[in-house]
């Protein structure tokens, strides 16, 4: 078995990104993810990669655009207000079919908000975020181990489908300290197979163009439809989730990230009091694991959605289960974190036998 190492969540991201073969980071300081660029600046230097502290998040995402267009695995990390600034670039990147990785260590909003953990960027992340018709693949880790492992998965998915990928963490996951296992063989970026869209200079081939515009009548529509084929393939192939104790559950809690961690403990408390509760944890937020949740909803009587927001994922839950069972909500916006007791109490308070 591989060696375990105790590590901050924000440091685990860095190790995961570098192990995934990424050698290009650009970013702008923002709390609560500053440990990412700080540690990255040291590690990129050690592995001979590029570390750029930029003048803004606008510059960071556009540096990623340029570097990724040449075939580099690239990532940036930021937190909510910074991610908002990156949406222009992300739209162009999505429109140009370029894979990049963006890590959002979400904090309380809107506006400057606060620096406490939050999940209020769900809409922004899962609905594209910028202008135009597009999606980004969104993965939601809930441990330091997943923060280490998801960058590799995110790069692979982003490159396979040529869409940007987002890892949606939060301030608590960033600051958490847990043992991680270096669970996969590090990727050597030199071994990444060259692609027919990389901009490398046109020696020995036709010139290539990366762009997101086409003004010829009907062409952009065609292009969007073609891109949609990839979105549909992602929806079909890449739904990921974890289901715990859902087989006999009368009430299924749906929660991701930190909310899922807290919910798991709340469910245990409720089970001790005789409530048959289970946890459904979406790992891919886009595509939302609708198929699996819908199947589980067929057996459950109630669903409780727990989010650190006013309720955003709940819309996807309702769409997924096609109104089979009542959907209840427990949320804490503005940087609030639900407690295990709150979740236990909520589970006990739900009406039973509705089905």
């Amino acid at each position, binding site marked *: 078995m591989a060696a375990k190492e105790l590590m901050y969540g924000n440091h685990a991201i860095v190790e995961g990104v570098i192990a995934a073969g990424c050698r*290009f980071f*650009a970013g702008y300081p923002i709390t609560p993810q500053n440990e990412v660029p700080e540690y990255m600046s040291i590690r990129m230097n050690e592995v001979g990669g*590029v570390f*750029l502290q*930029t*003048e*803004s998040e*606008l*510059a*960071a995402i*556009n*540096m*990623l*655009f*340029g*570097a*990724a*267009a*040449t*075939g*580099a695995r*690239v990532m940036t990390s930021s937190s909510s207000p910074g991610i908002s600034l990156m949406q*222009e*670039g992300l739209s*162009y990147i999505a429109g*140009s079919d370029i894979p990049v990785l963006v890590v959002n260590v979400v904090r309380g909003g809107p506006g400057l908000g606060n620096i406490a953990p939050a999940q209020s960027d769900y809409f922004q992340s899962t609905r594209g975020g910028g202008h135009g018709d597009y999606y980004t693949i969104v993965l939601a880790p809930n441990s330091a181990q997943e923060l280490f492992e998801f960058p590799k998965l995110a790069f692979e998915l982003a490159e396979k489908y040529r869409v940007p990928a987002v890892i949606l963490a939060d301030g608590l996951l960033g600051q958490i300290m847990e043992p991680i296992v270096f669970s996969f063989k590090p990727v050597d970026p030199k071994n990444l197979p060259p692609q027919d869209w990389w*901009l*490398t*200079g*046109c*020696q*020995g081939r036709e*010139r*290539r*163009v*990366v*762009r*997101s*515009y086409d003004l010829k009548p009907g062409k952009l529509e065609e292009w969007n439809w073609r891109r949609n084929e990839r979105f549909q393939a992602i929806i079909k192939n890449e739904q990921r989730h974890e289901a715990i104790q859902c087989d006999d559950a009368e009430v299924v809690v749906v929660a991701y990230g930190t909310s899922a961690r807290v919910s798991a403990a709340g469910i245990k408390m409720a089970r001790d009091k005789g409530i048959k509760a289970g946890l459904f944890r979406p790992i891919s937020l886009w595509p939302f694991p609708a198929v699996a949740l819908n199947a589980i909803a067929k057996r459950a009587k109630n669903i409780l959605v727990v989010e650190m927001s006013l309720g955003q994922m709940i819309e996807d839950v309702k769409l997924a289960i096609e109104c089979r069972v009542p959907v209840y909500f427990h949320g804490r916006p503005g940087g609030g974190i639900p407690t295990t007791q709150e979740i236990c109490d909520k589970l006990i308070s739900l009406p039973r036998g509705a089905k």
Partner: protein
Amino acid sequence: MKPMFIRPKGLTSVNQRYCPGCGHGIVHRLIGELLVEMDVREKTVGIAPVGCSVFADEYFNCDMIQVPHGRACAVATGIKRARPECFVFSYQGDGDLAAIGTAETIHAAARNENISVIFINNAIYGMTGGQLAPTTLPGMKSTTSVKGRDIAKQGYPIKVVELINALDGPIYLERTTVHTPKDIIKTKKALKTAFNYQLQNKGFSLIEVLSMCPTGWGVTPVQAKKWINDVMMKYYPVGEVRNRGKEEKK
């Protein structure tokens, strides 16, 4: 028979859509010639901005990327840092470089990124129909300053090469114009100097080119050239503002 005037291999066969009398075509040709003459075309990644020259990705016969408005210097940074062996140039107008992209431009210059920036200053927003630009001269009419740029309300134009000359970073800054054959030759020389510095890993060069926009200015092509000579060059003096490479040789 030897043809005396052919399209350089650095340009594609696509017909450019620029207006009659526009300076873009001239500067495109100079770059297209240099890409071949300097034997860099096959390792070039060029950057097309947002503005009239957005279609530059169709015109330059090399790998090209079309980028968000104003972000060309950031994208160029990403390309050059990820693939230092590539030759990287950005081609930007005044709205792109001196308004919405001011921060990206200044910081790329401050970092002395090893890139070549070609900045077309025609004192107006061409693509969107002639609005006030950050380089529109005092008193000059635009569709958003119909009585002329009022300094009290709209402030002063930005002199880009002088502004960037305040930074320690860049290796080479020059302002040229393309309204006479002599100045076109000088512009080509300046571009070549900039490109050479990049090939020598010396860092950031920016060539500001005063360029005609008869459509945006509401004048004939001939009047546009005269206006550059009589008015624009008085506000924006041409010449070398900085050449650290030359200083090093001394």
